């Protein structure tokens, strides 16, 4: 896949850079990496990171060191639907371990793995700030809260029907 932002996204990059004083375009790195991940298949390849470096006129190493620091940047390909399930204290008190086990069982994958059809990846994550609505997971831009086994089934069915 050729790594190149659309015209629309290039304008977005310009807009983001304009938020900072002149010469401080490196500040745009986190937002632009988010944009790159969304645009280039849900993960950041070395090629995507080099492209971002060239756009922001910084060294590729400055991008790598940031991309490897923050947990939301995926450095390997992930499934079309990434289930990021919280397992920190408050979620654990409300049964997140059972939910994680159920997802593993239902999808036949372990933590960090992707289903063979490339649809689902399971990733346990640390506290996402939804402790009162536990157990929960992040799916794309939004949170799915108050998870039960039935709700997990629904979410999986919903993703499958969207993918078809």
């Amino acid at each position, binding site marked *: 896949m050729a790594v190149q932002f659309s015209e629309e996204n290039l304008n977005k990059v310009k807009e983001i850079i304009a*938020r900072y*004083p002149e010469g*401080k375009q*490196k*500040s*745009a*790195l*986190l*937002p632009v*990496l*988010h944009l790159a991940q969304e645009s280039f298949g849900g993960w950041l390849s070395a090629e995507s990171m080099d492209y971002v470096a060239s756009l*922001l006129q*910084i060294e590729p190493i*400055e991008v790598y*060191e*940031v991309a490897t*620091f*923050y*947990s*939301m*940047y995926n450095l390997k390909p992930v499934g079309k639907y990434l289930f990021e399930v919280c*397992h*920190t*204290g*408050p979620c*654990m*008190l*409300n049964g997140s371990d059972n939910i994680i086990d159920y997802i593993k069982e239902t999808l036949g994958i372990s933590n960090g793995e992707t289903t063979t059809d490339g649809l689902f990846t399971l990733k346990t*994550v*640390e*506290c*996402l*700030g*939804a*402790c*009162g*609505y*536990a157990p929960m997971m*992040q799916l*794309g*831009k*939004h949170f799915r809260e108050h998870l039960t086994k039935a709700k997990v089934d629904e979410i999986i069915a919903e993703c499958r029907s969207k993918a078809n």
Partner: protein
Amino acid sequence: MGRKLLLDKAHIEGIRYYDTYRNNGGYAAAEKALKSMSPELVIEEVKKSGLRGRGGAGFPTGLKWSFLAKPEGVPRYLVCNADESEPGTFKDRYLMEFLPHLLIEGLLISSFALGANCTYIYIRGEYAWIPDILEEAINDAKKNNWLGKNIQGTGYDLEIYVQRGAGAYICGEETALIESLEGKRGNPRIKPPFPAVKGLWQSPTVVNNVETLAAVVPIINIGGDEYAKYGTGKSTGTKLISACGNINKPGVYEIDMNISVEEFIYSDEFCGGIPNGKRLKACIPGGSSVPILPANLLLKTAKGEPRMMTYESLNDGGFATGSMMGSGGFIVLDEDQCVVRHTMSLARFYHHESCGQCSPCREGTGWMKKVLLNIENGKGKMTDIDLLWDIQRKIEGNTICPLGDAAAWPVAAAIRHFRDEFEWHVTHPEEAMIRNFGLAHYADPLPVVATAAAV
């Protein structure tokens, strides 16, 4: 009903939008500040209010503002810390989702007071849908001349931008946040220089929590003296508490800081008690970093007085028998919960979130996680408990930023108050995997209300 200052209008339908917010008294404080007050006067009111930082440290806000350096010709910045990541804490999310204009108004008044013309909201990356809400509010405020150039004809200019993080607890630490906003790894800086002198792009910067900045609105509306009449002693005003864990009504509550912990847990106005008639075992009252307390010490101080939901009372007895208000993340554990397992999950959290700069934290957090996992899985030795104590002691105070302390305290408090539960795991390895230690003596003498709830 407790008195409210932040969420008093949260029930109004459409309060998320500009027109409704404005028609219900919104931007009146901004109008008052910009048109009839000087920046110094605004700072004076905030000082009088006694407002303390709501992010966790509880530092007096007015005092923090007065430290801001004001060299000629150098821009100053206000940064709103919306990187809410402390386990148990989800109050800022509520404010931003449902009352975005309250935050914008607070930012406007605070920026005016500090002489900042450009302000950033740094929000945790996982709250991915909230920047849209905030940006819509910013655009509407701009259309109505509450942001942009020459605001309401006063000659004051302000732009607000939203910046998303990308998943790093450490960026809630103010210098790590600044590094991240500069497009770098979130490695905390060595202080001094403090951000008030050299912060964002080496310019003087104030970093304040979302709730702190929102609280500036009622302070200006009713005056600092009036605000200080809410609460108790040095815990003035109201505080948002995000309650979670084993309670009937998890959620975000605004409390006047004059109610007891017992009332907060058992009253129907707040947590509504423990589900399924279970008894209270323990609680972490201020976000995962603060010491866990067994029920008996939570509800009453060591002196036998009722413990109150205030900065002072929660801290009564120091770390020996008390805890902290922290960020207001209130985590309740019922009698079926395993303290060792819960502590292990928090240790795992801190290990994951350590930035790796300082070896005591980078190595120590991982070590604690491993030892705790062994004990939880029935593979621990008695000496492991002393080893854990030793590791946490060697982390605390030996790191650049407070993450090291935050990782050490939960482990220390768990061993301090629940040592027999750790020992039971070691002496009963087979049982440790299949059942929990239970209440033991922690809830003894049982609080009256807990007994009533159990019947």
